[in-house]
């Protein structure tokens, strides 16, 4: 951050990859992509690709962590060794991945009706296959789709989008280049129906005005991605219905 980018990040109002400041990269989603899992989804924002698989509710292990009145969640965010442009990333969980696993768990828990699952555990495993910025927020969208696919009771979907600051302009959905050379990064998790933020992190240097502008843009971005997420879930179940009842 704060270093000179090899290419201009913003020129004539357009970003290095040709997008407008408030434009997402191409968003693709599919639900039910891991047949053994109780629920699963793959989400890509541009090149960034996250696969999430959900197992559970199942018996809580270790047993001393089980709760009599509600379920617990276990979340793992992990990057594949080949997912980055630089050298091979060690598969051993880094401090960064441990922190992200924690903030993602805390971003998903408010959406899951854990009171429905006493003494149980719900596992969410997220793997980044290809990383080009915004991996934690793509993970969040994938994880909530996988939870919904597993039939877990939820209050809302949690949609992840990132906003950032490049050349003092607020932009939506940072790619790897903008993440590395931009002036700020603000990953957001948002529940579009309940209008609540469940993931918020920030680095860089933001004025109060730019921060609030960015939060507003994040909400718009999340609403856009939410429609795609709904469609992805519908497609999954429409195709099952077609299989059973025919067209």
């Amino acid at each position, binding site marked *: 951050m704060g270093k000179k980018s090899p290419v201009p990040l913003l020129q004539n109002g357009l970003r290095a990859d040709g997008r407008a400041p408030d434009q997402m990269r191409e968003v693709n989603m599919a639900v039910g992509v891991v047949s053994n899992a109780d629920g699963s989804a793959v989400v890509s924002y541009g090149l960034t690709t996250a696969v999430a698989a959900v197992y559970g509710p199942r018996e809580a292990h270790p047993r001393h962590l089980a709760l009599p009145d509600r379920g*617990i969640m276990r979340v*793992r965010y992990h990057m594949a060794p080949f997912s980055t442009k630089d050298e091979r990333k060690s598969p051993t969980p880094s401090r960064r991945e*441990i*922190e992200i696993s*924690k*903030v993602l768990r805390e971003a998903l828990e408010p959406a899951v009706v854990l009171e429905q699952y006493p003494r149980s555990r719900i596992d969410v495993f997220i793997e980044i296959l290809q990383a080009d910025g915004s991996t934690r927020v793509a993970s969040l969208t994938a994880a909530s789709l996988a939870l919904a696919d597993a039939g877990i009771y939820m209050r809302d979907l949690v949609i992840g989008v990132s906003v950032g600051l490049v050349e003092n302009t607020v932009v939506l959905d940072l790619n790897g280049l903008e993440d590395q050379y931009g002036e700020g990064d603000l990953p957001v998790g948002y529940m579009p129906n309940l209008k*609540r933020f*469940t993931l918020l992190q920030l*680095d860089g240097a933001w004025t109060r005005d730019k921060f609030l502008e960015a939060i507003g843009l994040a909400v718009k971005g999340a609403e856009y991605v939410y429609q795609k997420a709904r469609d992805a879930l519908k497609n999954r179940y429409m195709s099952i219905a077609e299989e059973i009842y025919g067209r």
Partner: protein
Amino acid sequence: MASISPYGKRFISYLRREQIKRLLSTRYRVDGRGPEQVRDVEVKVGVVKTADGSAEVRLGRTHVVAGVKVGLGQPFPDAPDEGVLVVSAEVLPHASPYTEVGPPDESAIELARVVDRGIRHCGYVDFKKLAVEGGKAYVLWVDLYVINDDGNLVDAANLAALAALRNTQLPAVVKDETGIKLGRNNKSPLQVEVAKVPVAVSVGKIGGVLLLDPTFEEELSLDGRITFTFSEDRIVALQKSAGHFTQAELETALDLAWRGKERFASALKDVLG
């Protein structure tokens, strides 16, 4: 390594939680403070003579010691002309009945990384001045040790890290036939940009009331928690570490944290000079 809901380990009785909530609805807290009031803060530097820099912070009954050791190492490949900052945190088994012996858990890692993010890009430490000839760089190892946890570790640990860095003496670089190393007998103070000091302020949410500087007991009752780090008039780091917030709550929390910043900054004044 995965993150598991910790509720089974730490809990507060429903009665006590209700008491905290009920009292807060009248804008009082169990320890007699108002929602915007911060506990007494005490910052001392030079408390560990074996470290290159050190500080101790007491925030109410929360007690954190920070030690800085300076080493010589390789700069990060994406910043070959800059020094390196490594922040680690350990919540000692002394700190509370819930802390276990073992390597830092996810909360300790999060604590260290939130403090790190506040310091890294705000200009408080000029990392460009920490490059050393021969492709090497100074490495600032900042270790945060929590001795007693009575809540709000982030704000206290951040103050301790800032004060310890201010207190740090850089060993001179010595050249001999085996290469370059650090001469610990010849030291000069690490320069810090006092005006850019990054101050972390956490805001808790209990039953719709936003409050500063939560105690341990209040942390077990939180419906939301967010930390803002300010440097000059900018937000340089932010971390939501529990629950959820509406947009209106977020804005109120930001303004509350901004007002709370003065209290922590003034506790640092004597140390920063």
